[in-house]
């Protein structure tokens, strides 16, 4: 198909433009699929390369590692402990011990049974001591499945820490065991030996003297380190202060100047609109100039801080090392320590030291602060969302239902794709599910479409009405509408459902005053499907408009009013203003919201469940499929199935998986064609 350039496209008339867009959409479909396959392929290729790299790295680390590193492959954290990073090392070690204990005592037991999900159910036997029947429990498929997933999660977590531990070892070795360092250390040792052998009368100093010496050294260095801080700190603080002060003064000066200039400029202009425009422009340019100044000073200040941190920490560390070394010297005696001293300087030139425990702890509040903050929320999500979702996905491939979830039978097992077959009826499945599935899926999509767009346009309409110039009591109207958000849905919706029920007063009025037949029903079991569906959509408008009104109000306020003014001057009527200015702006800004709201409506459990409970029933389906009704959505149906007598959790899981697939496909498509994909950094 021919692609038009922008100018060519603009020359088309409206109808042609529309056709062109539709055609482009369909032409693009094969490319999406292609892209999708390529993306999937890329993903696996990348994953393969990643795994390969990891394995090679693990292997190479072992090959190049010293004995500490090698031992860490078995005793996790040993390397860190041996190199003085006690905190990390012991955490690693404790985790490994817990993991081994768990796996040996429980994990292995559960995982071993995962293939069969248990073979021996509960059984009753006669207990002569008590003269009664007693039930003895053995395997419980639910627990086996749940805990084996948990164990697998645990194993993955352990593998990750194990790998982390190896990486730590490699890093530590890189820092400590560079060839230059090693060579120097060797040389140093040789020289000391050499010196000792050539001076047989060399004597180590005695203990008392060493103690005195050490105390002296400590005193000296404590004073030095203490003296390091105030001086530097004062100077640094002064610098920052000066920097801030001059920034503030520069900004103030700029503002002052700007004010004077603006006043003068305003005096020369007569029309109100232009004045407004000038003020607006001025504000913007002023903002830019201020931002420039702030940036300038911010750079300077961050430079100070970098210097300060580097200098102070560096000097302190150096002093500490010196002190340590001098203490060593005091123990060794002057001659030997002189030799060592010489080599120390050479070794030091080779690179930075390892991260200490204290630094580790400090970084929890600084560089690693995100880990501290995320630990709790992510753990919660993993245990209470990820784990159950994995479980339920797996349940879709079992025959888990009420019949094997009781006191007398708690064993279920793998059945492959049988449940999918039952639901979609591609082979020889039962008709009950497949008929209901088609009906409900269709209604779910229709419902999501109408619920979303009716609320969207009507809500926008109401917002425009309330915000119109000259309308009074704006706050009051808004507050009245917002009541439906404030009052819990289980009250408002339950009450409304009773109003529209077969014995509710709305129907009573219709029968008494308008001559409607008494057989008529809004949302009862006797209702016509389309009447019930229409009623639900209408009541949903009652619930949904206020949200959209709030959102639209906020956005409409942001549309620059000069757009409307110039449109009015050009002779656009209200409808044209709406379709040319308001609607495009709204659609652009709320594009992502529309998608989330569509998906939210697909899963809108509350409205359907509290209003109709799914009624009227779909005739020929029956209890086996949870008595689905014409107003049931996939999620309410799923819930009903789990609540029915048969409690077919497996079928509910299948439906859940299908809902996921449908939702993700819709999201993918919409994200691909949506024009407004925003960049996060734009806002900051």
């Amino acid at each position, binding site marked *: 198909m021919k692609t038009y350039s922008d100018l060519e496209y603009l020359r088309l008339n409206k109808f042609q433009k529309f056709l062109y867009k539709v055609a482009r959409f369909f032409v693009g479909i094969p490319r999406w699929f292609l892209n999708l396959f390529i993306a999937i392929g890329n993903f696996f290729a990348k994953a393969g390369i990643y795994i390969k790299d990891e394995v090679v790295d693990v292997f190479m680390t072992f090959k190049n590692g010293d004995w500490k590193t090698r031992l860490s492959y078995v005793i996790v954290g040993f390397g860190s402990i041996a190199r003085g990073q006690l905190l990390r090392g012991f955490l690693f070690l404790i985790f490994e011990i817990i993991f081994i204990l768990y796996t040996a005592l429980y994990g292995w037991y559960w995982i071993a049974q995962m293939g069969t999900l248990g073979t021996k159910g509960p059984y009753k036997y006669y207990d002569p001591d008590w003269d009664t029947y007693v039930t003895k429990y053995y395997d419980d498929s639910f627990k086996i499945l749940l805990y084996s997933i948990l164990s697998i999660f645990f194993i993955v977590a352990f593998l990750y820490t194990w790998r982390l531990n190896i990486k730590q070892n490699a890093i530590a070795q890189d820092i400590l065991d560079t060839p230059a360092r090693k060579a120097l250390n060797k040389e140093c040792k040789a020289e000391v030996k050499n010196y000792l052998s050539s001076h047989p009368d060399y004597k180590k100093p005695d203990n008392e003297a060493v103690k005195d010496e050490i105390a002296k050294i400590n005193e000296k260095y404590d004073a030095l380190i203490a003296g390091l801080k105030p001086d530097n700190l004062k100077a640094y603080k002064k610098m920052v202060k000066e920097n801030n002060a001059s920034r503030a003064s520069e900004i103030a000066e700029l503002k002052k100047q700007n004010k004077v200039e603006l006043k003068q400029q305003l005096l020369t202009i007569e029309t109100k609109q232009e004045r407004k425009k000038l003020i607006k422009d001025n504000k913007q340019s002023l903002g830019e100039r201020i931002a420039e100044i702030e940036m300038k000073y911010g750079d300077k200040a961050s430079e100070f801080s970098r210097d300060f941190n580097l200098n102070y920490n560096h000097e302190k560390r150096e002093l500490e090392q010196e002190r340590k070394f001098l203490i060593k010297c005091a123990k060794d005696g002057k001659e030997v320590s002189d030799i060592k001293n010489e080599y120390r300087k050479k070794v030091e030139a080779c690179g930075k030291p390892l991260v200490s425990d204290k630094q580790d702890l400090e970084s929890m509040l600084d560089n690693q602060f995100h880990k501290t903050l995320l630990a709790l929320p992510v753990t919660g999500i993993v245990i209470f969302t990820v784990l159950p979702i994995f479980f339920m996905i797996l349940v879709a491939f079992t025959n888990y239902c009420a019949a094997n979830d009781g006191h007398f039978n708690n064993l279920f097992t793998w059945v492959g794709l049988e449940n999918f077959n039952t639901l979609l009826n591609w082979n020889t499945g039962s008709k009950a599910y497949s008929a209901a599935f088609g009906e409900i899926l269709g209604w779910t999509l229709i419902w999501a479409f109408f619920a979303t767009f009716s609320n969207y346009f009507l809500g926008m309409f109401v917002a425009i009405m309330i915000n*119109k110039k000259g309308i009074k009591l704006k706050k009051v109207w808004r507050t009245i509408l917002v009541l439906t958000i404030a009052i*819990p849905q289980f009250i408002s919706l339950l*009450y409304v459902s009773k109003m529209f029920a077969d014995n509710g*007063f709305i129907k009573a009025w219709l029968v008494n005053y308008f001559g409607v037949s008494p057989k008529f029903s809004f949302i009862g079991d006797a209702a016509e499907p389309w009447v019930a569906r229409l009623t639900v959509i209408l009541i949903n408008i*009652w619930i949904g408009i206020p949200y959209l009104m709030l959102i639209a109000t906020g956005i409409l306020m942001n549309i620059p009013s000069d757009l409307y003014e110039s449109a009015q001057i050009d002779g656009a009527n209200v409808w044209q203003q709406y379709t040319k200015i308001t609607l495009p702006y709204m659609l652009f800004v709320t594009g992502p919201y529309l998608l989330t709201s569509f998906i939210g409506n697909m899963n809108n459990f509350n409205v359907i469940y509290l209003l109709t409970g799914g009624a009227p029933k779909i005739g020929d389906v029956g209890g086996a499929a949870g008595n689905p009704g014409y107003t049931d959505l996939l999620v309410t149906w799923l819930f009903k199935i789990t609540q029915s007598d048969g409690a077919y959790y497996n079928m509910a899981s299948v439906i859940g998986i299908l809902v996921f697939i449908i939702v993700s496909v819709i999201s993918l498509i919409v994200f691909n064609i949506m024009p407004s994909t925003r960049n996060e950094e734009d*806002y900051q």
Partner: protein
Amino acid sequence: MEKEKKVVETNPAQEKTADQIIKENTALRDAEIKELKRKNEAELKQRLASTDSKEERKRIKEQNKVDLYNQISEIKNKYNDLLAHSLPSGANKDKRHMGMKSKRIIGNTTIYIILIIMTFIWLFPFVCILLQSFRVESTHMVGYIIPKQWGFDNYINLFTKKAFNDGGFGRWYFNTLIISIFVALIQTIIVLCMSYTLSRIRFKGRKFLMNFMLILGMFPGMLTMIILYRVLKDMGLTESHAIPGLILVYVASSGMGYYVSKGFFDTLPKSLDEAARVDGANRAQVFFKVILPLSKPIVIYTLLTAFMGPWGDYIFATYVAHHEETGMNVAVGLQNLISSEQSINANYTMFCAGGVLVAIPITILFMILQKYYVEGVTGGAVKG
């Protein structure tokens, strides 16, 4: 007379040409802007490719944005001027002025009528609940709204029919209050941690985490309830001991609802953090001492929504406690009152009274904090 006729005659032609002029003008303008953007992008890419340092690149991008904006507004101004010169002036402005006032009055009146009708529809169910809760003569559902006999019997019955420890309305109310308060506090902390981290700290795996949670959100939450129920049951946190279990489940996954507050944190300028870091603060201090004090609106929004969620939650609560009345929250308890034909007839007005008691505090709270709620909702929708 003659003048008017002239106006009428010349108008259509003029409007048409004006229309066309505007159309051409905007088309040309848009094309030029597009062209400019394309050129700019290409240039920017080259410039970006030529530098290595990240900061330099950022600066170039920033600079480019400003330049581009200026250029575009120049083009717009040019075309606006052109338009102002080329449009035929005058004639049709006068005509519009004449009908303007009467038109506005008609328009506003229609709007008032629509709004009044809407007010009626919106308030009707709530007024009905209120009225029926005071009805004394019968407890059935009836075909009229205004009670024939007024009284507080239903309210008194709610609290006296069953003692606190047997799970009467008072117990449900107490349960709900406890759950809501705890959930509001804990959930706010979790959501703030999550959204602050994702918004203002760049770390390895951040994008992955966000995408992962997006995908998790596509699974219907209904599914996980079955297993959570079983787990809670094994832990003994269902039925009469349901309250800690409910709090745990409500709170545990709340980190996934970080979107709105992340949108808020995204709008706070980054220079705040940088300035604080310069003054020697570590990341934790930046969070607690700089950002949190500025986040009052979003903290209140999160507290409010977190409080309202469990206050009105029905589904999971009914899963966890459906036999033992001592463990129910108000939603489950009240729904139980009218769950079958028989119980509707016995308890309908009591349900209404309960509904009123549940709705009043939350509505007052909502109205007081409405400002924050609106800010949060609009912000969330705009920033996705």
